[in-house]
């Protein structure tokens, strides 16, 4: 058979999208968060909130690794599964050479793909995981990402205690880790709750509109989100109304407005059904987070808690989840380069 499955319906859609013929299930999700995230609007929905920013470890890198380990342990525990039940793991984080993924996942003994997409990594992990499961190459995979405020500050900005003023456009890196298990079947008795499936994906291109300011990543990433969302509409032959919510990862307040503007110029109005995880995760006025939350953990913990809850309860029936990533490094920044960005869209539906 041409497609490798029992039916002949094409899986490739348009230029950059896939429509799954046997949509894989998201059977469980877990979210581990830091103190500030716990005090935010989504605080009560996280599986675990750590008061200690070091999570009982000796440094930020170990702390983030621990967050990721706990997210994986938690999602397995919630699903009633063992490490050995998981075929592959797709994981990524922001620290140099994927420190948190390497050290956090090491003890689990699960075959692992380490991936880097900056803050878009959760979208990339879920995309690859879903393809793997639907293609029949795995029965159960985990997609997991993490970020840590202090670790990210140290790597991308300044030491934590250095006295400087954050501009209003700067985002606040979320401390947390979110994981999901993607499976070929969902046998659990969910009562009235919906089963959640991934029905399609649109993989983003690298988009660079010439922004150099790492303190305004929302503006840098908005065109990438715009391109991916527009491509999703074109490839799937749908418009904004097809989705109950179009959920970007961490554009924040600055990026949100730009995204809505840019898409409107492309002929799509998403003002009414757009949501941004970076805006949802913090209370801007009380928590002094300026443009909003960011980081691999931002979209991951928001999806694994708030969005999954809304899908299970059918408050949302079909969402386009679009984590956005700014692929900058300190080296490319010092060399005067612009910030290339990327966004990956995952269609998630309640069944």
């Amino acid at each position, binding site marked *: 058979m041409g497609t490798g499955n029992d039916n002949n319906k094409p899986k490739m859609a348009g230029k950059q999208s896939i429509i799954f013929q046997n949509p894989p299930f998201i059977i469980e999700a877990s979210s581990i968060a830091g103190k500030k995230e716990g005090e935010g609007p989504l605080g009560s929905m996280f599986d675990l909130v750590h008061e200690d920013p070091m999570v009982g470890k*000796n*440094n*930020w890198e170990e702390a983030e690794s621990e967050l990721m380990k706990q997210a994986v342990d938690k999602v397995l525990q919630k699903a009633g599964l063992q490490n050995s039940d998981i075929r592959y793991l797709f994981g990524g984080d922001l620290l140099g050479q994927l420190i948190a993924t390497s050290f956090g996942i090491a003890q689990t003994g699960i075959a692992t793909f380490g991936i880097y997409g900056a803050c878009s990594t959760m979208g990339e992990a879920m995309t690859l995981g879903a393809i793997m499961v639907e293609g029949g190459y795995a029965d159960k995979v985990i997609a997991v990402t993490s970020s840590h405020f202090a670790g990210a500050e*140290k790597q991308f900005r*300044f*030491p*934590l*205690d*250095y*006295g*400087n*003023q*954050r*501009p*209003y*456009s700067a985002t606040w890196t979320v401390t947390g880790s979110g994981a999901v298990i993607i499976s070929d079947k969902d046998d659990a008795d969910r009562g009235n709750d919906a089963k959640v499936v991934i029905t399609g994906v649109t993989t983003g291109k690298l988009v*660079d*509109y*010439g*922004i150099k300011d790492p303190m*305004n990543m929302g*503006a840098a990433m908005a*065109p990438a989100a715009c391109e991916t969302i527009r491509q999703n509409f074109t490839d799937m032959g749908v418009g904004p109304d097809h989705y109950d919510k179009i959920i970007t990862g961490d554009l924040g307040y*600055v990026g949100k*407005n*730009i995204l809505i*503007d*840019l898409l*409107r*110029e*492309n002929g799509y109005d998403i003002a009414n059904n757009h949501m941004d995880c970076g805006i949802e995760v913090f209370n801007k006025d009380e928590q002094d987070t300026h443009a909003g939350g960011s980081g691999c953990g931002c979209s991951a913990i928001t999806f694994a808690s708030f969005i999954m809850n809304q899908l299970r309860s059918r408050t949302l029936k079909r969402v386009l989840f679009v984590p956005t990533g700014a692929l900058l490094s300190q080296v490319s920044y010092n060399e005067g380069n*612009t910030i290339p960005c990327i966004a990956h869209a995952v269609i998630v539906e309640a069944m």
Partner: protein
Amino acid sequence: MGNKKKVTASDVIREKDKAARGQKYNKYVKQSTPTFSTGKNCVKAFIIGGIICTIGQGFMNYYMSLASDIELAKSYTTLTLVFLSILLTGLGLYQKLAKFGGAGTLVPITGFANSVAAPAVEYKKEGQVFGIGCKIFTIAGPVILYGIFSSWVLGLIYYILSKFGIM
């Protein structure tokens, strides 16, 4: 081209040339990004910077009353301010002060002390040599290097001018 005019999202989308699109987009982003009020920031910097300098003057007067040696009093004042800044940095308070005071906390010697102490705290975990040793001057390094370099250049100019009897 309408350089003085506001750039809209539609101008950005319609621009086909990549470099020109980048320029237009940057302009458009600048319009849509909220910034600090410079006036307000200047006032806050003046107040906090002024307070730090007044505290310094207080120490200066005190040390003068002890030994009435101006050079000694100056050195002790600097030492005291640097110590206080490092103490506040270690307690995580200097960053909070800087968030409010901006340049008022950056310009006095306390700001310099903070820029050395903060990396020392942060990179301690990476060891005495590769952590603190290599990274303690990541922020203050350029100030030290170019400060010494420009003093050297000025010294050279002074030397040449004095040789020709101009100064």
